[in-house]
């Protein structure tokens, strides 16, 4: 595979163009052309499509689009271009079966295929939801690490250091990133799972220097730094600096791509194609061991809408049928904790992801932005659903996802806000309220009665 130094060189020597010309003169027309050429059409009735030929056309469209478009470097205002041969070589020589975690918690990241019976990797945690204090932070990590189906932790975002609001790029950013890692390690130790990997190191960090600082205070080589592309098909030196550091330190990378539905990629068809095109970008530029996609609706701010679920499902199928780089899907739901709607939303995007070949990271509630609106209960439920549907046909999954969407999609704009962590959990014991346990049990029964989904019996709340 083309080495990273060569990629950096291309950032300095590739064709010059303005950002506007890249967006409207290159990206948009190239994308429109391949979407039309490969006849990629959104079907709202099939949020989980089951058409292998369509999935392969999305893949072909994505590769063609990437080869013609390249990736725009914001710092040099140049396009980093890759030939088809370089893309194909990267796909053949990408990482396989990376081991994350240590000791009893070490595990190989599985490559999965559509309708695969292989259990999905389940990362659990607040997924960047901001948290107001360190006590909640440790409790949230501990509660998520106690999930028997959890393979890794997705850590929350600490918002202050000793009462001072964290500002990215400042010394508070450095201290916040370090503290986030130390608190996470402590939370996992309390849960009796000290070897669990962190896969979104480090949410609290904004800049590369903060990632690097955090890495020196407790991140391990078997954790993953989360490094993302910029909307859309863009990169900057700060992100490339994170990659350079990770490669030097021998650290793993979760390569993140959140294509905006309604943004430059346009509608669901464009989003599916661009998400697929990111897969080789994640190998060549971000040097990832995992593709970490979350197509997000521009207006609703979620990944649980019908059109984003379709784009995610189809992109997953395109990628997992054609690339060995595993996919771990991230989800952002609209409703807050301790609501039925949040459990329905998580279930819908999790089912679509898993039957389409992906693993999952559950999960952000209240759009991932409301302070303390997160709990370990929904990630537990989401990971149970993920295991229950491994091996399910896409056709059956489509029926369930359609039924789930009918339960909540009309409320996505104004969802129930739910409860803050400290309102639905006992902060002293770190345990959910009885009312919350009853709600969880009720929706588990619904999943069994309405959809025949038998969730694993490993739950501590049965």
């Amino acid at each position: 595979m083309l080495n990273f130094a060569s990629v950096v060189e291309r950032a300095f020597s590739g064709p010059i163009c303005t950002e506007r010309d890249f967006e409207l003169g290159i990206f948009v027309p190239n994308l429109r052309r391949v979407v039309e050429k490969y006849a990629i059409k959104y079907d709202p009735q099939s949020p989980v499509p089951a058409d292998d030929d369509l999935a392969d056309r999305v893949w072909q469209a994505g590769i063609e689009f990437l080869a013609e478009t390249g990736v725009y470097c914001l710092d040099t205002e140049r396009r980093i271009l890759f030939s088809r041969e370089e893309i194909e070589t990267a796909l053949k020589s990408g990482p396989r079966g990376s081991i994350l975690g240590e000791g009893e918690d070490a595990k190989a990241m599985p490559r999965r295929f559509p309708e695969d019976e292989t259990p999905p990797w389940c990362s659990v945690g607040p997924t960047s939801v901001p948290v107001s204090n360190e006590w909640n932070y440790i409790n949230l990590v501990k509660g998520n690490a106690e999930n028997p189906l959890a393979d890794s932790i997705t850590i929350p975002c600490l918002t202050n250091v000793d009462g001072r609001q964290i500002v990215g790029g400042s010394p508070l950013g450095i201290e916040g990133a370090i503290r986030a890692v130390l608190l996470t390690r402590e939370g996992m130790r309390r849960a009796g799972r000290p070897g669990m990997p962190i896969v979104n190191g480090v949410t609290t960090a904004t800049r590369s220097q903060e990632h690097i600082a955090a890495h020196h205070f407790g991140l391990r080589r078997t954790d993953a730094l989360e490094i993302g592309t910029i909307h859309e098909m863009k990169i900057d030196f700060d992100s490339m600096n994170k990659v350079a550091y990770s490669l030097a330190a021998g650290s793993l990378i979760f390569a993140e791509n959140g294509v905006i539905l309604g943004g430059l990629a346009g509608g669901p068809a464009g989003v599916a194609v661009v998400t697929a095109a990111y897969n080789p970008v994640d190998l060549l530029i971000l040097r990832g061991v995992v593709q970490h996609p979350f197509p997000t609706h521009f207006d609703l701010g979620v990944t649980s809408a019908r059109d984003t679920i379709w784009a995610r499902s189809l992109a997953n199928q395109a990628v997992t049928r054609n690339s060995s780089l595993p996919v771990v899907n991230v989800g952002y739901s609209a409703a807050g904790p301790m609501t039925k709607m949040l459990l329905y939303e998580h279930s819908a995007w999790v089912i679509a992801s898993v039957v389409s070949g992906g693993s999952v990271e559950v999960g952000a509630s209240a759009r991932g932005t409301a302070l303390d609106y997160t709990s370990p209960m929904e990630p537990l439920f989401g990971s149970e659903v993920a295991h229950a549907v491994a091996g399910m046909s896409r056709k059956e999954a489509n029926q369930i996802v359609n039924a789930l969407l009918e339960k909540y999609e009309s409320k996505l704009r104004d969802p129930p806000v739910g409860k803050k962590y400290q309102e639905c959990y006992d902060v002293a014991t770190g345990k959910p309220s009885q009312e919350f346990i009853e709600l969880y049990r009720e929706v588990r029964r619904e999943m069994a009665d309405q959809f025949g989904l038998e969730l694993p019996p490993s739950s501590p709340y049965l």
Partner: protein
Amino acid sequence: MPSEALYQRLSEAIISGDRNKLLAIVEEALREGIAPSDIIERGMSPGMREVGERFARYEIYLPEMMMAAEAWEGAMKVLEPRLLEAGGGQKRVGRVVLGTVKGDIHSIGKNIVGAMLKMSGFEVFDLGVDVAASAFVTKAEEFEADIIAASALMSTTIPQQRSIIEHLEARGVRQRYCVLVGGGSATQEWADSIGADGYGRTAGDAVALALKAVGKG
């Protein structure tokens, strides 16, 4: 009516975001003696309204909005001098300085807001991303803006929205501008806590707030 057909073609050129085609039709309309104000109000403006409505129905997305806005701006460069000659001028709803705060490089949400503001008749100066608090203030003064709109996606960058308000206060010009905040990490609670004048979760919210701020909402 031949003019009606021309207005229709002007509108269609805006909707398709075809800047060159729009310019050609504008020139043709001027040659036929149609008043610049009619070209705008009876031809181009209905096209812009249609673009906004299609966007609201999720039928078109950011690229179409950006191209329509660029086509509009290109045509206005031709029409504005003619309007001035005729003793008129372009009717601007208000002026907005827009940007993503320092340390944050996310642009899509900001760009959607910018395009929708232009569609609604605002003159928009887009400072881009990673913009220092002082730059918002300096540009607002130069541009004689009515509104400063600041976007921040991350919880570690929203403190920069407060910094803009602090810079306005330090220069003694806080009351001159309506400060609107938005972006993934902002909330109404946050906006209230920093003394912002409004919070928009969506681009549509931002435009409604902006129109209200200039007395048009």
